[in-house]
């Protein structure tokens, strides 16, 4: 399994042609208390760099973009009842959706974990 990050602070954990997507610890920290999450349903097509989910903190609403194109296989329904999981465990139980990748070469432009953790220190 490999973990990648986008410059928009989404993470994607890839296992073969399947992957799980969420937002980074840095992103949840910046958003503050999360009060609402809307995840895509199974079967929905998502495109690389296009909005796939919505996350709302007390202060503001933000779009979450899909790091790659593909078909959603599962949305994390737990977040509807407990959106604060994104604050408490953003890179674990606070995942947003799983998908089947169209084209694994879309991962090439993403940062690996080390590069991302270094990059956010510069922000």
């Amino acid at each position, binding site marked *: 399994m490999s973990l990648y990050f986008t410059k*928009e602070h989404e993470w994607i954990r890839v296992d073969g042609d399947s992957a799980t997507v969420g*937002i980074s610890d840095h992103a949840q920290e910046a958003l503050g*208390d999360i009060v*609402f999450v*809307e995840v895509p349903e199974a079967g929905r097509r998502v495109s690389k760099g296009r909005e796939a989910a919505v996350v*709302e903190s*007390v*202060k503001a609403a933000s*779009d979450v973009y899909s790091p790659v194109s593909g078909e959603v296989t599962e949305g994390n329904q737990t977040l509807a009842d407990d959106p604060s999981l994104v604050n408490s465990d953003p890179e674990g139980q606070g995942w947003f959706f799983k998908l089947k990748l169209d084209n694994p070469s879309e991962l090439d432009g993403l940062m690996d974990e080390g590069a991302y953790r270094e990059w956010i220190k510069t922000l």
Partner: protein
Amino acid sequence: MSEIDDSAILDKLPLDSWHRAHGGRMVPFAGYEMPVQYEGIIAEHLWTRENAGMFDVSHMGQLLIHGRSADAALERLMPGDFQFAADMKPKYSLLLDEDGGIIDDLMATRRGDDFYVVVNGATKHGDIDYMQRRLPEDVVIDYMRQQALLALQGPRAAEVLETIIPGVSELGFMQGGPFQWQGRTLWISRSGYTGEDGFEISVPAIAAETLADAIVAHELAKPIGLGARDSLRLEAGLPLYGHDLDTRTTPVMAGLTFAINKRRRAEGGFPGALRILAELDNGPAEKRVGFEIDGRQPVREGALVLDGEGNEVGTITSGGFSPSLQRPIAMGYVAAPFAEPGTALKLEQRGKLFDARVVPMPFVPHRYYRKEAKP
């Protein structure tokens, strides 16, 4: 994820480094860098509802308006009763334009012949210009830029502040007075913007850090950011200038008619009196109302209000997630026929419809201090 870029030139509050040292996350607001949160908006909000929260509101404009007949002069700009205003009693009032539109909302307190006036931060320079052009020459406005302003709010606020400034808990709700503290004069009123008991403390900027330290040294007091200030005032049903009030709204539309007493209604003589008195008689075309929204998703400023047939009948001017009620709430303006509590309406935000009902405000009951009746 989307991001916001903000890069204007910003002023610093007297407590700027204090906020940073206490973990405040600074954001641009009203021309200043201000703390939006310390530990988190929801925790700070709930702390204030249960204990005591300290807010730095030094961005607000503190003015001293003086000169003989300042009271009569102020009545030509605002609908408040200043001539018969009792000493040391803060009054809520509104600076109005010629059409009765709201230029700002403010608190004005008579101190002898003078008036101590607190206006909003984002509007203070415009307010001063507007008033200076219209006040007679012998009425002078001093902008007290050397004063900081702290608020301590919550059911334990009196208990906390009494340990630092003995005697403050004797103040009644909407009563103010001077207090001596460490050789300086503080102006303290029992008032606030959260719906809770609490105080607003005008302190010389050079002493603000020492006072802030003394307050948060109490185990029941914590610093609270702008984020919780906004969610607290929304739950309390209190309008925020620039969002729920502006020059397109009048005091009657906004449901602030308590700020116009019987004498001023009878005599008029304030800007926009013709329109405002007609609205008082006949009802305004639109009214500010509260909304309870189904589901969990916040509906925010800018969302449209629709009737059952999809016609636009209003706009949301403030909205968010209520930490106390654990549900989304909002306020906005609707055409008068839709303003009755219980009216079912739809809200439209980013192409999505939400079921909502008009409800009375406040959303969370006010718990202002009431002196016990004397036996």
